[in-house]
């Protein structure tokens, strides 16, 4: 039996030509769309002219460049990626992936170790210290929101409300009563928890999407009240001269009774910054510890059961109302503690710091962290805020890139960085649950299957 004759080589170039033609068509359409999108908004630039009325200039050169770039980019993509349906995930060999998930435990420990050493490593770099404080603060906020969204599956879009309540409570209590930081902090947390109960109560019967918009509404209401209730909150001017923290009674000043003098050190403003860093790190670690403990207690399991299937939870005798309320108020408490820290760190707060953008950022951190995982939240916060800082030179384009990065990351990894859920208890062996099986927060109708 002879082998069938190889296909004539004529057809190859023809096939290739068709491919190129199709790719060019694809690129042309993309360029056309780009033209439509950008012709008015980029091609024309409006400015307020000398008389105050709007005048405009044309930027057709820029428009042409962008359209051309889209064309070329799309053409390249169509030509090269057509056959290679490679995803980045599949490039990583299985053995590496398996090793990676085993390393997760060590990664957490390494992360904490690194976090503890940051002030020592970067002692002279005030900029890094400030950034580190920011990252840890948002990590703590992420831990708090994680209880509500990641564990209990309640879509809260107004988390900034509790951050604000904590900050303002701290500021007002500290200023009015002159109590020490260590008393005002838990008080602020308790007030925030109470706010969580208040805000949680009316929304419990609402399903996911309604819960989302109502919590968003609460966040806005709180901000508007802070903005307008001038007598209490100082309105848009906020509250300033918030008492700064002291080292258990020793103020961070150059005076003789100050921290530096007491410990025989040369005074440096960095002392306070380092103290603040360890303070927020301690708070974040506390939040983390409490959350991990709660996950292994009945209440934590009830939260996760609520997320997985609320109806089944009810049928097992779980009071879903109180379960939701505890999730809300625990999350609120930690948000409030973070807010109190924020107030004392800045020395000054105003409603501008408590916009919906904050809620969105914390939610993004929790979702991109993935699967209710604490480590994921920490990594996501570091990546997002660190990345944001890295692009500081880009100035106005920074937020644009940030938004685009958010979209890109969630498309690439919709369940977030961490792709498995770790069970809180095991009989024989702790086995991770893959992401595909686990429920995430509800945004819509409970689809009865």
């Amino acid at each position: 039996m002879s082998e069938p004759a190889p296909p004539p080589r004529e057809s190859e170039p023809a096939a290739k030509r068709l491919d190129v033609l199709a790719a060019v068509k694809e690129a042309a359409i993309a360029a056309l769309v780009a033209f439509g999108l950008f012709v008015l908004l980029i091609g024309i630039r409006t400015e307020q002219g000398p008389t105050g009325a709007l005048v405009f200039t044309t930027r057709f050169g820029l428009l042409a460049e962008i359209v051309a770039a889209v064309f070329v980019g799309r053409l390249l993509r169509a030509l090269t990626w057509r056959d290679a349906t490679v995803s980045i995930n599949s490039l990583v060999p299985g053995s590496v992936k398996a090793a990676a998930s085993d390393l997760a435990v060590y990664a957490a420990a390494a992360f904490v170790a690194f976090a503890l050493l940051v002030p020592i490593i970067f002692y002279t770099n005030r900029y890094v210290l400030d950034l580190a404080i920011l990252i840890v603060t948002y990590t703590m906020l992420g831990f708090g929101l994680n209880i509500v969204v990641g564990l209990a599956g309640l879509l809260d879009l107004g988390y900034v409300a509790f951050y604000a309540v904590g900050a303002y409570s701290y500021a007002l209590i500290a200023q009015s009563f002159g109590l020490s930081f260590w008393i005002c902090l838990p008080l602020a947390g308790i007030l925030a928890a109470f706010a969580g109960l208040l805000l949680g109560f009316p929304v419990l019967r609402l399903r996911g999407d309604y819960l989302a918009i109502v919590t968003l509404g609460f966040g806005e209401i709180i901000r508007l009240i802070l903005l307008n209730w001038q007598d209490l909150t100082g309105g848009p001017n906020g509250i300033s001269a918030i008492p700064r923290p002291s080292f258990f009674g020793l103020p961070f000043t150059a005076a003789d009774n100050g921290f530096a003098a007491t410990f025989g050190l040369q005074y440096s403003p960095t002392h306070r910054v380092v103290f603040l860093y360890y303070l927020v790190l301690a708070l974040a670690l506390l939040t983390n510890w409490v959350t991990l403990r709660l996950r292994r207690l009945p209440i934590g399991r009830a939260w996760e059961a609520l997320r997985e299937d609320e109806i089944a939870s009810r049928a097992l005798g779980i009071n879903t109302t109180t379960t939701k309320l505890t999730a809300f108020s625990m999350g609120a408490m930690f948000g409030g503690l973070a807010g109190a820290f924020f107030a004392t760190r800045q020395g000054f707060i105003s409603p501008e710091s408590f916009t919906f953008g904050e809620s969105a950022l914390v939610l993004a951190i929790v979702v991109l962290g993935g699967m209710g995982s604490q480590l994921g939240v920490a990594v996501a916060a570091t990546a997002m805020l660190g990345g944001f800082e890295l692009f500081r030179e880009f100035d106005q384009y920074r937020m644009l890139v940030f938004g685009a990065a958010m979209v890109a990351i969630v498309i690439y990894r919709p369940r977030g960085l961490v792709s498995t859920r770790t069970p809180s208890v095991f009989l024989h062996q702790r086995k991770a649950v893959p992401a595909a099986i686990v429920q995430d927060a509800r945004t819509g109708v409970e689809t009865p299957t």
Partner: protein
Amino acid sequence: MNRAEILTVEHLTMRFGGLTAVNDLSFVAREREITALIGPNGAGKTTLFNCITGFYKPTVGRLRLAHPDGASFLLERLPGFRIAREARVARTFQNVRLFAGMTLLENLLVAQHNPLMLASGFTVLGLFGSRAYARAEAAAIDKARYWLDRVGLAPRADDAAGALPYGAQRRLEIARAMCTDPVLLCLDEPAAGLNNRESVELNEFLRAIRDEHGTSILLIEHDMGVVMEISDRIIVLDYGVKIADGAPSEVRNDAKVIAAYLGVADEEVASAGLEVGL
């Protein structure tokens, strides 16, 4: 000699707008008995279940649950979770509702939420590592292990519930319901999708639950093999109305039941047949 009544349904009517799903239904389920609810699709069986377990509020009627020790509950007045917690009525669902992302063990521990919550001092004591809670959790894990063994799923205790095959998921759901130590277990089509061997195992399992644990069972089922084999009593519904109520042998031969399932002989067809000489 009749056993004590455990569930008394009196004049239950459930209306959804213009549709009457259950119409003036009254029956009794007795202690330590398996009572089956059968009837064609749409007869109102799951609606009845939902009324009993608190997912619907009956339009009219009374549902009394009496515990062997004398405690009595009016189910139509209780919110769903209290029916499970205090009246100790457990249920499974027509389309299995497991906590898919949690392991089998975790599923069974969630079922023991209420006693564990008490033992953990409503979380506070548990947070600080109380010895009492550790003991309670160990006991709960033992109970979970026991039921996992009973349904043959112990080796898979640490797998995700959502990864189990269908038959195993159904068994797990029953095991989970039993972990709440119910007085009345309501099963919604437990034999659906099971093959013959699995159905036989299910029969044995349900009988064991009734005999060893003293749990009364209320069962919705279409599989007549299962129903006739293990039921002590059968209630037949059709269009929301009770058309038969008795032992399997009585119900099997009841003309109304046969008519509901198989249809009545059409008189016209019968007379036409006579004319033609059939």
